[in-house]
């Protein structure tokens, strides 16, 4: 079994534990307050960190020129996602911007 499959299954088990955690295993009211305060901000922090890592392309101090299409796609998506409801249109527009720019750069 490949590493990817093992990690996917492990994340599945962990996710299920989170899901039943406060329903069946341990009431959330018993979590320490500092942990609950950190958890309040975990979602935007995690999503933003993944965006940052995705724009950088996995390398420190990235070569911005080569990552420009990804950056442009992210900016177009962000601007539209703030203005319209739903994720489909912003993502399609962002992907189109990235695609056009990658063709121009190449």
């Amino acid at each position, binding site marked *: 079994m490949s590493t990817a499959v093992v*990690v996917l299954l492990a994340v599945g088990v962990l996710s299920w534990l989170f*899901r039943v955690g406060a329903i069946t295993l341990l009431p959330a009211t018993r979590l320490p307050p500092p942990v609950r305060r950190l958890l309040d*901000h975990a979602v*935007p922090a995690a999503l*933003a960190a993944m965006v940052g890592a995705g724009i950088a392309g996995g390398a420190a101090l990235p070569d911005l020129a080569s990552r420009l299409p990804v950056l442009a796609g992210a900016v177009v998506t962000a601007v539209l996602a703030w203005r319209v409801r739903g994720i489909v249109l912003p993502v399609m527009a962002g992907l189109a911007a990235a695609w056009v720019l990658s063709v121009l750069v190449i």
Partner: protein
Amino acid sequence: MTSTPFLERSVVAAAVRDTVPVAASIAPLALVIGATAARSGVPVAADMVGAAFIFAGAAHLAVLTTLGAGALTALSAAALINVRLLLYSASIEPRFRRQPRWFRWLGPALLIDQTYLLVTARDDLAEPARFRRYWLCAGGLLMGCWVATVALGSVLGPLLPEGVPLDAAAVAVLVGMLAPRVKALRPAAVAVAALLAAALLPGGLGLLVGIVAGAVVGVALDRWAS
């Protein structure tokens, strides 16, 4: 009494009616996940099992995009993303309190952002059996559509031309999920701190430091505001 079958049909119809547009809204993410998995060499069947087990797009995508930085990094990133499910389960626990034991253990497997928002938006699910039918129907339908769309992405992914920037698609989907959450100043500051730290530090270290930095900035701002 004929009212029970009628109620069963009405709650099922309501669940389907509520779920179809939600399933359509998450389809782009599922397609990107399937295509990314195919490009990463993950077999379609394995990715479908992963999609059903994880049943959470951002965490699934995190595994696929951070695996290059190591299994532990991918596992940690996905865990930090999905830890919000603990908060959802705490919030929704009263709806599960009077349910049968099997449902209290297996029903939460369908808990995601969308099912949480669907049931918390309805005020007609106080009766346990009615909640259970709605939950299983909406969550089951959503999971079925999700896994099928991930599989479709896995099949279509290899057919895409080499020039298609799939990494841009993955980032765009994440930005689309992030943007509605950061309209206020505090979550925006959390996001900026996390994004910069993750972008400026290498690979998996940047991702983990970014998440922690964002959460710490959030807590600091909470204290400052109070």
